[in-house]
């Protein structure tokens, strides 16, 4: 399992390392495994369910994992209680490993039947190819335990010795997994002398461990962690990514000695600042380009905007369809060493674009630098853990008078003034030759992501509705669409937006796009116009027609149908939905009753829906605002109740009275 790297300076390729690290995250790492088994507690055999989490398919009663970098050994021990038929899948065991770098040996497994009798595994262990490419050989040892039934306990153990002279560059205890863990013991013995590696020091960190769980360092330098009652990970809609929930401990070797977080980030930010300065240190090239970009009399903000447009005109390699190495070579794509290269080549990565922006802004007299941040769609910045790898992206920070303006010209779907949602409401490190500084990038408010709908319909005497629907995707909502469909053509984009809009409407509605504009101008909303028909819904009753106040069906609200929830509710960004609908009525029709106007204002969530009569038409307005992102699970009942109220308001009906004359027409 995992990432065993040779101490003889043999370095895994970036691909191999990436794959191996992924495996590390997927795999159970491991102690010695002999033929001894831990004693069976009769109470465990008698268990009918997980008392701590009733209704489980299975639970891990005990797990022991041990890795010894000095002895190049790792071992794993699992004891799992099966409660249901669905839980029996735990008896199919797959142990991935990197062939040639490690092996899987001494596999032992057995099934303890509810009666207490034991069935030893004596079957075949298969060696399955997962992937072979360019020297990388990932295989799986697979086997299935015999005679597995609900009520039984299965257990298995194995050793995974790795290449002598190798060690785990990064080792992870996956404390929390998809099954509840009752008791777990994890041991790691790092190299006694990290300096025998290409690294100098050894470090470790804990992520999302329960408060009582702490790895204990032993006098021999090893680490031991005992955990109890770790709940299973739950997949729920509108949750933060699993890696931002999952309890784990990471050990790694590093080039740097332990510093205080302040010292570490100051030094790291200083390094980044120097690199940035070096990259943009082409005054002549920048001034020439700037002269063609801005006019000396432009206002400071105009200059910043013009520079933004200039940078985004450069070909951005990071957002193109993936290319093979041969294509890149054929195209003679070269690495840019500085801003002059970027300008001369006419292309660059997103990093190049942001650095170029800093260079041009500085050339125009602005104080500008980069802030490195942890994108919150993937990871979290925990400064105390001193991991620069968390800060995977950067944002330009430029001073406009007293204001900090945050920009990401390297994300071509985002206009001046708007950074991708996953780069705001985060902390990061500002790069500066004077030393890094931890700073916060503020989040958006709800006005920065809007869906605006305008509907003009006329009601036919038969009860159907026909007219036009116009939708504008504003701010983050437009940018998210532009990002996801960036490599598609107009046919594909039209189809995807059509399908999205159609999903909001009653199932029998027809929507045909007639105009689709401003996709390529990221400063404008994506604008979609189309014809809409909604057949009669059989709502004619005794001289009346009943119509819903909203034809739009909230997709998000449907995600909170369950009364139970484990994780916080997490929206990517605050947002608004606004509807303005006019329905022209046939002659002889008038409003009999409108439901009372619903307005709701509960903390970060506001909602209003109402209707008014205007001559021979009705005018409907609806607004829904979520001005928050993270709603702790303890407030879930409230959040769910609010969304129920929204659904109820949307489902309210108005009643139109049909005159006798009109009824006979």
């Amino acid at each position, binding site marked *: 399992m995992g990432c065993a790297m040779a101490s003889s300076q043999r370095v895994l390729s970036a691909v191999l390392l990436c794959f191996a690290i992924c495996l590390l995250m997927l795999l159970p790492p491991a102690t010695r495994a002999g033929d001894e088994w831990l004693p069976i507690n009769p109470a465990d055999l008698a268990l009918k369910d997980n008392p701590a989490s009733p*209704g489980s398919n299975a639970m891990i009663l005990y797990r022991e994992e041990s890795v010894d970098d000095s002895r190049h050994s790792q071992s794993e021990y699992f004891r799992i209680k099966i409660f*249901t038929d669905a839980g029996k899948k735990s008896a199919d065991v797959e142990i991935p490993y990197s062939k040639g770098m490690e092996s899987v040996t001494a596999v032992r497994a057995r099934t303890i039947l509810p009666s207490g009798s034991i069935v030893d595994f004596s079957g075949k262990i298969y060696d*399955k190819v997962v992937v072979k490419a360019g020297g990388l050989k990932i295989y799986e040892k697979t086997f*299935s335990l015999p005679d597995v039934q609900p009520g039984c306990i299965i257990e298995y153990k194995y050793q995974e010795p790795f290449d002598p002279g190798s060690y785990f560059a990064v080792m992870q205890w996956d404390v929390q997994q998809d099954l509840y863990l009752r008791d777990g013991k994890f041991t790691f013995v790092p190299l006694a002398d990290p300096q025998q590696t290409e690294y100098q020091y050894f470090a470790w960190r804990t992520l999302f461990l329960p408060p009582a769980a702490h790895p204990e360092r032993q006098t021999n330098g090893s680490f031991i962690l005992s955990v109890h009652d770790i709940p299973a990970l739950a997949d729920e809609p509108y949750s933060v990514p699993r890696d931002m929930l999952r309890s784990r401990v990471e050990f790694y070797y590093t080039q740097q000695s332990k510093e205080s977080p302040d010292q570490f980030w100051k030094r790291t930010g200083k390094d980044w600042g120097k690199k940035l300065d070096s990259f943009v240190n082409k005054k002549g090239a920048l001034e020439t380009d700037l002269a063609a970009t801005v006019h000396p009399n432009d206002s400071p903000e105009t200059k910043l905007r013009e520079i933004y447009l200039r940078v985004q005109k450069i070909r951005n390699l990071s957002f193109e*369809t993936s*290319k093979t190495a041969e294509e890149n070579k054929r195209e003679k794509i070269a690495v840019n060493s500085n801003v002059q290269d970027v300008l001369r080549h006419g292309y660059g990565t997103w990093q190049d674009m942001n650095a170029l922006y800093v260079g041009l802004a500085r050339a125009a007299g602005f104080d500008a630098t980069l802030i490195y941040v942890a994108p919150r769609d993937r990871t979290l910045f925990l400064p105390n853990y001193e991991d620069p790898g968390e800060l995977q992206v950067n944002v330009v920070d430029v001073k406009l008078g007293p204001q900090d303006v945050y920009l990401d010209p390297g994300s071509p779907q985002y206009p001046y003034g708007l950074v991708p949602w996953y780069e705001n409401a985060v902390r990061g490190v500002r790069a500066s030759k004077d030393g890094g500084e931890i700073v916060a990038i503020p989040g958006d408010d709800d006005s920065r992501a809007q869906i605006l709908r305008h509907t003009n319909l006329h009601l036919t005497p038969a009860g159907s509705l026909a007219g036009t629907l116009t939708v504008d995707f504003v701010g983050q909502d437009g940018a998210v669409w532009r990002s996801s469909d960036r490599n598609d053509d107009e046919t*594909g984009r039209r189809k995807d937006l059509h399908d999205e809009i159609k999903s909001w409407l009653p*199932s029998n509605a027809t929507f*045909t796009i007639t105009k689709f504009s401003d996709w390529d101008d990221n400063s404008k909303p994506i604008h979609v116009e189309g014809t809409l028909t909604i057949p009669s819904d059989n709502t004619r009753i005794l001289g009346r027609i009943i119509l819903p106040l909203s034809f739009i069906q909230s997709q998000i609200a449907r995600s909170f149908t369950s009364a139970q929830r484990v994780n916080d509710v997490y929206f990517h960004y605050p947002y608004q939905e606004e509807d303005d609908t006019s329905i022209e009525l046939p002659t002889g029709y008038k409003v009999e009753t409108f439901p009372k106007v619903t307005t709701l204002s509960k903390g970060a969530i506001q909602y209003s829906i109402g209707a008014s009569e205007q001559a021979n038409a009705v005018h409907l307005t609806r607004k829904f605002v979520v001005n928050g992102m993270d709603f702790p699970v303890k407030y879930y009942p409230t959040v769910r109740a609010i969304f129920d109220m929204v659904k109820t308001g949307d489902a309210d009906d108005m*009643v139109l009275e049909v005159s006798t004359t009109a009824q006979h027409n």
Partner: protein
Amino acid sequence: MFAIALAGITAAARSHSAPPWLTTAAHQQIPSYPSDTMAVVLFEQQQISVDANGHVETLHRVAYKILRPEAHDTYGTLIVPFDSETKIKSINAWSIPPSGDIYEVGAKEAMETGISPDALYSDDRQKIISIPAADPGNVIGYEYVQEERPYIREEEWRFQQTIPVLKASFSLQLASGWKMDSYWVNYPESKPQMSDRGNYQWDLANIPALPHGQDFMPAFDAVRGRLAIEYYQPVSADDPVTWQSLGSWYADLTKTSRQTTPEIQQEVAQLTANAHTTFDKITAITNFVHSQIRYVAIEIGIGGFQPHSADVVFKNRYGDCKDMTTLLSAMLEQIGVKSYYVLIDADRGVVMPNVPTLHVDHAILAIQLPADVPHGNLYATVDDPKLGKLLFFDSTDSHCPLGYIPASLQDNYGLVVTAAGGELVKLPLLPPTTNRLMRTAQFTLSPSGDLSAETQEVRWGAPAEDLRWTLLSAAPKDRVKIIESFLSTFLTNFQLTKAQLGNLNVSDKNLIEVYDFVAPNYAKQAGDLLIIRPCVLGEKELTFDSEKPREYPVEFSASTLDTDQFSITLPPGFAPEQLPAPVNISDAFVNYSSETRLVGNVLQYKRSYEVKTSFVAVKDLGQLKRDFQAISDDERSLAVLHRVSP
């Protein structure tokens, strides 16, 4: 991750030339296609040669023109499967941009991965090559040669695809004296060009695309154009290939699989010790297989067809479909009941009586019912002229009890394998009364429009099997979410107050769901009117996309009979102003009736919905569409009450 790996191992740039067949294909003029067409197959070729020893070498060539960016991933990745019996002799791919500066990639750039989505272990693998510059306007092509010694001497040319095909060619070169039979499926027959040296060649042009993804469409292989070929040595048992000879081949392959052991005999003896009748014994044994043998697939080489022995399956307590069928058959033999393998494709419509090929992916058992077994409640039976009454049984579907077969196997063809050979048998479509959902509910409406409900659903047959799969695949604590999700389809707002499941794990008993809920504001008030939808729960889902023409028949998974009986106790002081009109539909496909009545202060809604067939042809879809529009209208119909007293 794989994409990164592929990019990382792609070869260094060098100049290349494309083979003549690809260059020729690239120079074709292509007609105009609908704007959403991703790509077009310019040329597709399969050349198969079979030598006197039965070794097969196949050359595959394909040239695509990329029309839209969406095609980049779909057609820009070459995937060639192989296994321990199949060797890839060569593999190459090219990309021709308009500049003519050609890319070429080959075996060195290939990545290898396992393919076993459903198996714990399989020796099936695949080579994957990322073809450079699979971008709009470019032509890409690939060629590979495979060598194999197949277990079954048959080939299938699946020439019709989800994108248009301009030219396609298939040729078969047989060793001297060998023969072949060809079968056209879902496409007009085309005669081959033949040479006197045993070469057959078929050429097609302008094959229309078959789009994917319409609701209730049959399996793609059941509607796509394809050519099936069986070839064989003359004057052999396979001359010609028939269902009988295919069955003989499988009978021979499995002749030792069902040998029993003392342990199996002992188990059968224990299981049947208290069973007084043959039927009870059969039930005890089938229950054992369903409950005690776990589905685990391990397939190596011929293991894709040949089951593990009954002994191995019994010891492990696991196996795949053919393994479980093998053990069951061996155990039944111990009580004197004969049974036969049945090879079938789980996609209805793929196996066709006039096309004797082993296009199958599943094995079940046909149990020859002894005369003393009452068969009134055993629905999955046929009367075979030679074998008598056969009862079909799927060992892998533990939620489908004895007497039933899963819906996808109904109205489907299976090859019954006996020592005397094979016989293709049509499995029955079980009648609607065997697949029932009975929903009853007592609702109480408050003066403010809140609805409180006590609901019971009783299921057997296919509806029970479907729901058991759903519920039992979830952890017990998550099952309530399934009920909540169901209710959210019909109710804007609700609180589930009680949920109980009866007989969930007892598949031969009715599955019972009891749940109570409260739905605030269910009834809408408009002045003195109270408006309520009497069909509170349930949707008979078959929506036709109004924006696209329907190109395929409709396939129902099973024939079913659902009934709803709802009583809604109204608040005092209301009288009916308008009730939904009754609906009655009866045609060859569907029976539907509904009625709403007011009895005292109780609004009674009852309906019956019966699907009578599994298949509705395209020509009949107009009628079916009208049926379901009327059903949908009925489900949405409103009852209007007016206040008669304050």
